[in-house]
């Protein structure tokens, strides 16, 4: 049948794709969208840098191996989605149907991934998600999308196990009113009840909070021995400076996102020691031989350490794509098959997928110790033992 899409394909090819064919013969075009501006822009540079590192590493090694039949250089096609998920969906539509890229990498953020999912499904274009963590997509039954990151069900649900193992009995929870934090909380609270850990304080706060003195004074008044802050980078910063001022001295202090960010490390230095956060990767884990080289390469290139979460899951998604293409070439259906059934050796160990979920990488928690994030849980991948948070300096 001469479908609508064929007609359009011919028309667009005639009108638009001339430059694409000229360059496309040589290079593999890899498309993605990223938030360079807007609300998310603060978090996206690490992912973008990771992609660039990956591309340059591959190109320096002669290019991306296509089904074992020769190598081609990688070229990026990327756009700014302005932190608007609907714009990101438009961008993937454009990348697929008008830019005709060969492969796709993921955008930044959960909401953005969710928005993009229907587009890649419709076009049957495989996309390995990275910096997104939600159970909403797990239930989508997506066939062309996978996630390298573990879900909030894991890092919310597992936290009481860590708490139990280090003897924390009374916790205070504060949570940002944004999706990731709220979803984590949804899994955290029942798990705490189940583990018999008492919640002595529980409050949320809006994204535009400017001062936490009132909130943390109340937390301190509840005298918890563990504080769980389901936070984002900006409010993690507020938490750290305010917790020092009000003298919050719980021996377990958890910040969901932020402690591994470079700017927070610059700002707080040794005061960050003892803070726990989510993360399942460390360059010091000897079981993952690729981990340390990645760390060193990233540090050499950008003069700062890679983010233990975002950089890692982004790099993993690129590695998986690279290995799938090396095996089966550029045919999307074959790539899908390869990703869905294969096992992949990444900087965070072996990855395989069950549905959209990465079942190879275990969930874990990091603690900053002497300025270095160490895995403190679970036991099979830990690189250091938990140390109670010392006094603020």
């Amino acid at each position, binding site marked *: 049948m001469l479908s609508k899409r064929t007609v359009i394909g011919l028309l667009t090819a005639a009108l638009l794709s001339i430059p694409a064919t000229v360059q496309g013969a040589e290079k593999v075009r890899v498309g993605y969208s990223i938030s360079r501006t807007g609300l998310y822009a603060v978090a996206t540079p690490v992912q973008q840098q990771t992609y660039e590192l990956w591309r340059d590493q591959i190109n320096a090694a002669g290019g991306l191996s296509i089904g074992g039949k020769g190598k081609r250089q990688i070229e990026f096609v990327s756009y700014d989605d302005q932190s608007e998920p609907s714009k990101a969906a438009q961008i993937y539509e454009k990348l697929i149907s008008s830019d005709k890229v060969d492969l796709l990498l993921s955008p930044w953020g959960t909401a953005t991934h969710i928005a993009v999912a229907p587009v890649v499904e419709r076009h049957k274009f495989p996309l390995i998600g990275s910096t997104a963590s939600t159970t909403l997509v797990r239930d989508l039954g997506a066939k062309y999308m996978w996630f390298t990151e573990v879900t909030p069900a894991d890092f919310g649900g597992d936290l009481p196990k860590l708490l139990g193992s280090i003897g924390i009995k009374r916790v205070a929870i504060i949570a940002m009113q944004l999706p990731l934090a709220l979803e984590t909380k949804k899994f955290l609270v029942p798990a705490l009840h189940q583990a018999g850990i008492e919640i002595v304080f529980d409050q949320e706060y*809006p994204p535009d909070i*400017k*001062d936490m003195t009132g909130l943390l004074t109340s937390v301190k008044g509840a005298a918890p021995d563990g504080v769980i802050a389901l936070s984002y*980078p900006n409010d993690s910063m507020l938490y750290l400076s305010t917790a020092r*001022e009000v*003298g919050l001295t719980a021996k377990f202090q958890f910040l969901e996102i932020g402690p591994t960010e470079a*700017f927070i490390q610059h700002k707080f230095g040794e005061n960050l020691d003892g803070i726990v956060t989510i993360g399942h990767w460390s360059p010091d884990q000897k079981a993952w031989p690729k981990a340390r080289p990645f760390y060193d390469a990233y540090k050499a290139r950008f003069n700062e350490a890679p983010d233990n979460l975002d950089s890692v899951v982004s790099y993993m998604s690129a590695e998986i794509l690279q290995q799938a293409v090396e095996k089966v070439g550029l045919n999307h259906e074959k790539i899908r098959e390869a990703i869905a059934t294969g096992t992949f050796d990444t900087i965070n160990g072996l990855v395989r997928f069950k549905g959209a979920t990465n079942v190879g990488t275990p969930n874990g928690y990091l603690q900053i110790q002497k300025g270095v994030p160490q895995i403190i849980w679970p036991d099979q991948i830990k690189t250091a033992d938990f140390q109670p948070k010392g006094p603020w300096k």
Partner: protein
Amino acid sequence: MLSFQLLIAALATGSVYALIAVGLNLIYGTMRLLNVAHGDLVMLGAYATYWSFSLLHVDPLIAVPFVGLLAAGIGAAAYFFLFQHFLRTGSLTDRIEANSLLVFFGLSIAIENLASLAFSGNPQAYEYLDRVIRIGSASIVGNRLAALIIALCTCIGVLLFFRLTTLGLAVRAIIQSRDAAEIVGVSARKTYLLTFCIGFGLAGMTGAVVSLYSQIWPFMGFSYTIVGFVIIILGGLGNIVGSIVGGLLLGVLETFGVAAVGANYRSILIYGVFIAIIIIRPQGLFGTKSTAR
């Protein structure tokens, strides 16, 4: 509840709010321009301080006045290149609030995106005066205390400038009534240039102050702009004292209010109080009736 700790925090937050609002209000009061790019000047000031600290090792406290001067220069440039013409064009000044809002909005978009191109989207922060200082029963990190002191002193300085100097008097006269001021020999144009310099300069200084304790990134400005607008409406447009009091009031609301009603309702509380005050007193807390119309 009435803890000294909360009071110090309220002052630290409120004094910076006040500083933002004063600069914003000057530009509104004299020319009726709604400067929604004010927060972006704050951002530029913060970056300037950050770079001079991390590259040239300039003490941020010493950098504050120079950053202010730099921003004042930008203000002068903005006046000469854009707003001199703007203020002379009748069809623009007819609906001056809407039009100036849009011009500054355009500038804001351009500044933010240029900044993100030039400085990258990576947030920055630096460690400075990072000891916790005890004052009575309260403690505060040194850099926040420094920010508090600088912000308060600057606010008071601005206030004195407008009370005591001839130039300040001219600006106040223009705020009261442009026509009457011109009749008694105040040059509106010179005053406009001066307010642009002071308004932008204060924004830059705010940035330097904010950088002491906060993270810096290209899109940080908008939230400061919003805070500024809420305050100047609360305190009354064109009313400098109102802005200072309004800023401190918002700081109190932010700390004591959160402690009282819970952090969940922080933003509902702040905007709720704002809306209630405007509805009860359309001219703001300290405004006079005529300014509301």
